[in-house]
């Protein structure tokens, strides 16, 4: 398998994650989309680590990504719950206080 296949999969997952962020009216989907994107990045890292000669860097980086994704997910959930308390809605459009 060439590295291209893995890159293609990663790209597809990345695109799907983007769509999940942009096109769903539920903030949880935003969360899910972020995780998908991070996963896509991880696939890319590991694929290149492997295909550049079993290097370690890519995998190390992927581990750190996972760690931080976890932290981020925790905080994001807390924020989502806060937003829900304030706006009583899970729709991202409702949170347009930054609107001009």
């Amino acid at each position, binding site marked *: *398998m060439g*590295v*291209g*296949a893995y*890159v293609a*999969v*990663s*790209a*597809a*997952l*990345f*695109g*799907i994650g983007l*769509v999940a962020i942009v*096109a769903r*009216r*539920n903030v*949880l*989907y935003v*969360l*899910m989309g972020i*995780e*998908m994107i991070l*996963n896509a990045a*991880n696939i890319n890292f*590991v*694929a290149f680590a*492997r*295909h*550049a*000669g*079993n290097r*370690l860097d890519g*995998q*190390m980086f*992927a*581990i*750190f990504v*996972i*760690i*931080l*994704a976890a*932290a981020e*997910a925790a*905080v994001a*959930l*807390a*924020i989502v*719950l*806060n937003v*829900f*308390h304030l*706006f*009583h*809605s*899970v*729709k991202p*459009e*409702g949170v347009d*206080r930054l609107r001009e």
Partner: protein
Amino acid sequence: MERSSKVFYGLLTVLVLAGLAAGSVAAGWEGLAFGGFSALTVGGGLICIWERSVVRSAFALLATFSGTAGLFLLLGADFLAMAQVLIYVGGILALILFGVMLTPPDLSERKIPRLMSALALIGAGVLWVGFRIATSATWATAAELPPVASNAREIGVGFLAADQYVVAFELAAVVLTVALVAAVYVARRRKADLEPPDVARAGEGRS
């Protein structure tokens, strides 16, 4: 099931089978494994964004994470695959499910035109970019790949070795701690929580 859903799942099935076939044809068992795991990943993602119910989407995400773990395995990162399943499925997915549980569903979900247009634009764009990259880029890959080997020990050493990733490791631990504290603080209970909340009033906030 809705008609559009039927169409979708039908297409998806076709896509998966095609992938499997292509993989096995191209690279034998490895190819098949790759095709299966890729199908799991991408298929899971597609289902995730297609499904109306958040819960079902969350479980589709489970498939995605699992597929990713499988891909890691194929790439010889066994420790990483385990870590992926452990943290992502066991931690993050749980968090998301908690979130799903604590928030009411929005029933006016999924306007098809928006989804479609978004898919069209972004998906097409990304696919095209990916295709170009995949076909035309020359990667700095090794000519001769060594056999897949488990490298858990190297990772562990890497975390603790003074000249490798120990600082990043420690910092990551700090970050986790901070995130834990922050999440607890941000999500603390407030006086307003004690009043019954208004259901589904879009865009309205009480100051």
